[in-house]
């Protein structure tokens, strides 16, 4: 039954939505604003909000002091690499769980998810030691593999959910039409699951991009991504809020822009199959 919504009610809803939205967005806004202040204005009390001397000095200093492009490139490789590798492994895994489930499939899925419930720090020591033993500390390939493994349960789960929405008869039809397993995955399943795969890739890329725990602990110079770049501005020389904010803004800008352009795809993928 449709409910009548009065104009007043609509206005109230709008106001509430904007308030909540602003509340969530405020820290980011504050970071961006602070990045244009001088260090003195950044810690002024009471804080200045808009009326300060806008300056690009912080960005200059940050760029001068550290090579932003190298951190950015590391982030792209680590987030992109771990996502691609994860999807390559997860598509066949999710296919088998969705279309040829065994008695244990449900248990396996739950077990995979349970690994996400373990605090990361719980396995820091073994993984750190392993990296030392293998000589891959501060190594991009090692981070690609580790982040892939950490996000794999989520990728498999998401793809599994999308694949479940695809009628099995269509895959059977492909088999009757002479398609082998490879053709079935390549020409039928994957194209049909494109919205789901795209949003999985996007979400996972964002997760890997923002991953700080492992990147901070396992990198120092060569493989350090943007998360390490931000962290490098936080403590050693005391608290330089304006420069820290400039670094943060530079680190989150690429992913914010990517998210902005792909928001439609992301929402469509996340609600895929929710409504028949």
């Amino acid at each position, binding site marked *: 039954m449709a409910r009548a919504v009065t104009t007043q009610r609509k206005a109230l809803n709008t106001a509430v939505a904007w308030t909540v939205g602003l509340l969530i967005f405020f820290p980011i806004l504050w970071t961006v604003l602070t990045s244009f202040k001088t260090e003195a204005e950044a810690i002024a009390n009471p804080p200045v909000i808009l009326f300060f001397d806008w300056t690009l000095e912080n960005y200059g200093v940050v760029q001068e002091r550290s090579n932003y492009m190298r951190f950015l490139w590391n982030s792209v490789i680590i987030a992109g690499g771990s996502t691609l590798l994860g999807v390559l492994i997860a598509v066949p895994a999710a296919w088998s769980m969705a279309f040829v489930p065994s008695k244990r499939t449900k248990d396996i899925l739950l077990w995979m998810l349970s690994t996400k419930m373990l605090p990361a720090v719980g396995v820091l020591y073994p993984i750190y030691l392993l990296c030392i033993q293998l000589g891959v500390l501060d190594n991009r390939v090692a981070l690609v593999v580790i982040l892939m493994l950490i996000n794999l349960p989520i990728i498999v789960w998401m793809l599994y959910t999308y694949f479940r929405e695809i009628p099995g008869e269509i895959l059977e039809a*492909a*088999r009757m039409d*002479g*398609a082998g397993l490879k*053709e079935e995955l390549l020409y039928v399943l994957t194209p*049909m699951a*494109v919205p789901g795969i795209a949003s999985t890739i996007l979400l996972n890329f964002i997760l890997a991009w923002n991953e700080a725990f492992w990147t901070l602990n396992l990198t120092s110079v060569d493989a350090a991504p943007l998360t390490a770049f931000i962290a490098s501005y936080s403590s050693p020389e005391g608290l330089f809020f304006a420069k820290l904010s400039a670094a943060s803004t530079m680190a989150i800008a690429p992913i914010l822009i990517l998210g902005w352009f792909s928001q439609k795809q992301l929402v469509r993928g996340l609600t895929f199959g929710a409504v028949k």
Partner: protein
Amino acid sequence: MGRITLDKVRKSFGEVEVIPPLDLTIEDGEFVVFVGPSGCGKSTLLRLIAGLEDVSGGEIRIDGQDATMVPPAKRGLAMVFQSYALYPHMSVRKNIAFPLRMAKMDAAEQERRVKAAADVLNLTDYLDRRPGQLSGGQRQRVAIGRAIVREPAAFLFDEPLSNLDAALRVGMRLEISELHKRLKTTMIYVTHDQVEAMTMADKIVVLRAGHIEQVGSPLELYRNPRNVFVAGFIGSPKMNLVDGPIAASHDAATIGIRPEHIRVSDEAGDWLGKVGVSEHLGSDTFFHVTCEGISEPLTVRVGGEVDLRYGDKVWLSPDPDHLHRFDDKGLRIA
């Protein structure tokens, strides 16, 4: 060629045996219909022939070759699914060409065959559309098109018309029969609708709980049902089945009489009854008559001009030449 032989084919899902060992031969060019109530194993049997399910025992031969372990892609059979199972991301042209593409046929030949199939099925104007832009009947045609392009040894149809509305169903039924006459390829058709079975089949296989109850031509089954189940299942409206003292007076546990084999009179006859609901089809009328000593109302078929009212008293007499007698095991008494 498309001769398919099932030799002691058996299927169980875990502990449950859905198809006990079963033998069946389908001759080349035959139109065979598997019919039975839902859950009788007819679709499973078709999927075993297709290779979409593995047999639990026995052997499937296609043209004399053992195909039991051959994957579906290599059996040379084409299948039309109830849900059409079209590829939603491909145009009609690509859908129909898909099996040819999988067979790595050259592009010119693919195009020629797709055109020919589209001609036969009136799809020429829709080749560049996606399945989502087609009506149910058109989608069904695309599914058939995809099956015929590769010239398979046999076609398998799994309840292909059940998603269509009644008028379209009759039309498609004729089209499929027409196609069979033209291609002369073996067709195996699964349905729960005995009218489809009667109108299309060369040979009907009646199944119940995985067992074959009877195999024969539609009229053979109609005239000489081997048991009570087939008698009751084939024919619309259903055969009247009467047991108790009336059956005993004919030396049988159950007698069966088709609605058109009962004579109606308002003066004299064997059974006195009261007219209940009547269904007027124009050409025919079906009366449901409750008779003394018979638990179920009897269905009687008379010409469209006969006019009886609710509650009228009538006499019914079964035609003794068309009386079917069954023993206490439900088997036909010769």
